[in-house]
C-alpha cells in the first residue's frame, strides 16, 4: 500500500501489466523517453525497453490503427491519446474498426486494446484541451468506456481494461490527476495523499468494469456522476445538507443498471451530473435509463447538470464547469419538485 496521485496510480497499473505480461506495450505521442505530457508513462521505457514503450508519430489514427493491428496479432497495446480532444482523427479506427472486429469476424479476430486519454476541463486548457467526449463512445456498440474518479479505482480499472479482451476507452479526468478537485477552484486542492482513495496497493488488483460504486449513501436523492463530478457532487451534498446518494458510475458502458435502478427506486429523485455538453450527452442516456427503469418511483423531474452546449471557453471556464453551486441548486430543486 502506498499513497499515490492518480498519475502514479495509472503508471503503476501499466507497470504491473507490463511486468506480468510481455504482450503489453505502451506508446503514444511523447510517451517514450519523456514519459508523456502528464508523465503517466515516465520510467516505463527505461524499465521495459524501447520496443515496449515508445514515442509515436503525431497521428492518432495511426496510433489506434497500429494498436488494432498489434492487438489482432496477439499483443495487448495500451496507447495514449495526448488529450481526448485529439481522438477525433482516430474516431474511425476506434468506432468502425476496433469496436467491430470481434463481431464482424465472428470472434476470428479480437482487439484487446486500451486507449487512454486525459479528459475534462478545469485547467484553463480552452476548447481543445478540456473536452469530455464519453457520449461519443457510449453510442458506439463494441466499445467499453471507463472513467475513474480516484487513484485506487484508476489503477484497478486500468488493469482490468488492459486485461479485458475487448477494446476499452479509458478516460482520465485530468483535473483529478493531482487531487480530488471538487469544483472550488478558488480553494487549494487537497492532495490525493490525504484522501482515503489515494491509498493504492502496490501490486496487481482489479476493479471490475461495469460496477458502479456508492460514494455516499443517502435517502433523499440519487446523484449519478463519474470522474471529476463525483467530487463536485460530494461537495454539493455536504454544502446543501441534502441527503444525497452519490453513485460513481466508473464505467458508463457497460452500465451498472442495477445500482442505478435500486438507488432511484429508493430515493425517488435523481440528479445527473456531467461536464460534457448537454445535448445528447451521456446524461441523456441516464435520463432515459432512469425513466425506463424507475418511472413509477419518480417524485420529481430528473435534473441534468452539465456543461453548456458551447465549446469550453477559456476565460469563462468556471461559468461552463458544472460546479458545486450548480449541482447544489439542482439538489435543492429536485427536493422541491
Amino acid at each position, binding site marked *: 500500500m502506498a499513497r499515490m496521485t492518480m498519475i502514479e496510480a495509472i503508471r503503476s497499473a501499466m507497470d504491473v501489466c507490463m511486468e506480468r505480461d*510481455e*504482450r503489453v*506495450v505502451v506508446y503514444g505521442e511523447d510517451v517514450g523517453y519523456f514519459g508523456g505530457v502528464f508523465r503517466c508513462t515516465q520510467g516505463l521505457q527505461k524499465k521495459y525497453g524501447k*520496443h*515496449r514503450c515508445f514515442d*509515436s*508519430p503525431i*497521428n492518432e*489514427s*495511426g496510433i489506434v*490503427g*497500429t*494498436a*488494432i*493491428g*498489434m492487438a*489482432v*496479432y*496477439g*499483443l495487448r497495446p495500451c496507447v495514449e491519446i495526448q488529450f481526448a480532444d485529439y481522438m477525433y*482523427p482516430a474516431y*474511425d*479506427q476506434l468506432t*468502425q*474498426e476496433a469496436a*467491430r*472486429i*470481434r*463481431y*464482424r*469476424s*465472428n*470472434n*476470428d*479476430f*479480437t482487439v484487446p486494446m486500451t486507449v487512454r486519454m486525459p479528459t475534462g476541463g478545469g485547467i484553463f486548457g480552452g476548447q481543445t484541451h478540456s473536452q469530455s467526449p464519453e457520449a461519443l463512445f457510449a453510442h458506439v*456498440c*463494441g466499445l*467499453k468506456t471507463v472513467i475513474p474518479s480516484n487513484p485506487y479505482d484508476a489503477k484497478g480499472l486500468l488493469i482490468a481494461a488492459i486485461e479485458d*479482451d*475487448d477494446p476499452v476507452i479509458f478516460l482520465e479526468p485530468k483535473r483529478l490527476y493531482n487531487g480530488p478537485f471538487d469544483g472550488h477552484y478558488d480553494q487549494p486542492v487537497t492532495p490525493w495523499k490525504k484522501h482515503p482513495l489515494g491509498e493504492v496497493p502496490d501490486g496487481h488488483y482489479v476493479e471490475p468494469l*461495469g460496477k458502479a460504486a456508492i460514494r455516499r449513501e443517502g435517502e433523499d436523492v440519487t446523484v449519478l456522476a463519474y470522474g471529476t463530478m463525483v467530487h463536485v457532487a460530494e461537495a454539493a451534498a455536504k454544502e446543501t445538507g441534502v441527503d444525497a446518494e452519490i453513485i460513481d458510475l466508473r464505467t458508463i*458502458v*457497460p*452500465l451498472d*443498471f*442495477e445500482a442505478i435502478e435500486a438507488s432511484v427506486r429508493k430515493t425517488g429523485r435523481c440528479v445527473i451530473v456531467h461536464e460534457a455538453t448537454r445535448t445528447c450527452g451521456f446524461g441523456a442516456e441516464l435520463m432515459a435509463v432512469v425513466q425506463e427503469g424507475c418511472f413509477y418511483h419518480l417524485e420529481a423531474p430528473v435534473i441534468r447538470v452539465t456543461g453548456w452546449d458551447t465549446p469550453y471557453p477559456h476565460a469563462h471556464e468556471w461559468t461552463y464547469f458544472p460546479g458545486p453551486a450548480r449541482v447544489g441548486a439542482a439538489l435543492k430543486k429536485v427536493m422541491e419538485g
Partner: protein
Amino acid sequence: MNDVAPLSLYVPEPEFRPGDEPDFSGVKIPQAGSVRRPEIDVDPEEIHDLAYSIIRVMNREGEAVGPWAGYLDDDEALKGLRDMMTVRAYDARMLTAQRQGKTSFYMLSLGEEAIACAFQRALSPGDMNFPTYRQQGLLITAGYPILDMMNQVYSNSKDPVAGRQLPVMYTSKKHGFFTISGNLATQFVQAVGWAMASAIRGDTKIAAGWIGDGSTAESDFHAALVFASTYRAPVVLNIVNNQWAISTYQGIARGRAATFAARGLGFGLPSLRVDGNDYLAVYAVAKWAVERARRGHGPTLIEYVTYRVGPHSTSDDPSAYRPQKESDAWPLGDPVERLKNYLIRKGVWSEERHAQAKAQIESEIAQLQKEAEKNGTLHSGPKPPPRRMFEDVYKEMPLHLVRQRQEAGV
C-alpha cells in the same frame, strides 16, 4: 498584380468516356525484362527509378525474360494458373447468383486475379494479409474452402460470420486473411501495426497490406506509410491500381504524380511498380518484398498495374462512365491468358488441357454452389439464428444487450 490572369480550377479527366474509342497506344509499357532487380537489402534511395517503370517478366511471345524471371518453377506456375481459373469461375458463379436475387451484393476481381493469387504464393504460413474486398485470390490460393466463401456470400445458416456481414467480407485467421472492412484504407495501417507486433515479439512473420488506387487518397494510407517508415515494420504495402475507383479514374487519386508507387519515395521506402497481369512478375516482386521484410530490411511499397474489367460491384454499371471496350483495349492483356500461353510455350500445358481444366473447375464450383444453397441463400432457406446478431458485440454479453435480445424475442 494587374498582369495576373484569373486562376482556374484544374479537374483531371480520363482520356476516354462512353462513346470514345479507347486507345492506349500512348501508355508507355516497358519491355519485359528491361527493369533491373536490386538486392533485397538495397538502399531505397538508390532505386527511385523502379517507382516510375513497370517490372514485367513475360514478353509478347510468352517467354519469361530478364532479371525478375526464373523465380517460379513450372509446377508452381501451373498451380497459379489453376488458382486464377478457380477465382474467375467462382466470381462468375457468384455474380450470377446475385443477379438471380440469391444475395444482395457481389464484387468480382475479373482481370486482377494474378495479383492476389501470385502474392499469396510468396507468403509463408503465419503471415497475415490485411485485404480489401477484391483479394478473394488470397483466400482461394491459401486453400480456404470455397464452400465457406459461398456460405458467407449467401449469409446462410453456415455463414462463417453468422449473417452479420455484407457478401465478400470474408475472414480467416487460419488462412492469414484479416476480416475485411467496409471502410476503405483502415486495414492498411492495421497491417503495419501487426507487422510491428511481430517485430516487437522477435517473431519472423510478416504482414501484407492491401489498398486500391482510389483508396490511396484516404488518410490512413498516410498513417500506414508514416508508421511503416518510422519503425521499419516488416510489411509489404500493396497498391492495386486497377485504373478505376467506382466511376472515378485513377487520375483523381494520383493527381500530378506520375505513378502511385512514387508515393513511397518521400518515406524512404523501396517503391516498385509491376505489371499486375503478369503472374510471374507479380510473384517475383512479391517474393523480393516479402524476403526484404522477413530479413529485417523493412517495408516495401508495390504498385500493381492492372485493370478492373468488371463493374465495381453488382450495384454498378460502368457503361455509364467509361467506354464499353476499354478493357479490351487495355494493353496489359488478361492474366489467365498470359500465364496459359507461357505454360503452353514451355510445353507443360496445352489448349486442350486448359479447356479441360476450365470445365472441371467450373463443374466443381457449380457443385459447391449447390451444396452452399442447401444451407440457404439470403432470402430463402435456413438462416443463422437471429440471436447471433446480439452475440460477439462483446466477449460477454452485457446486461443492456441481454435485455434488448429479450425485447427482440430472439
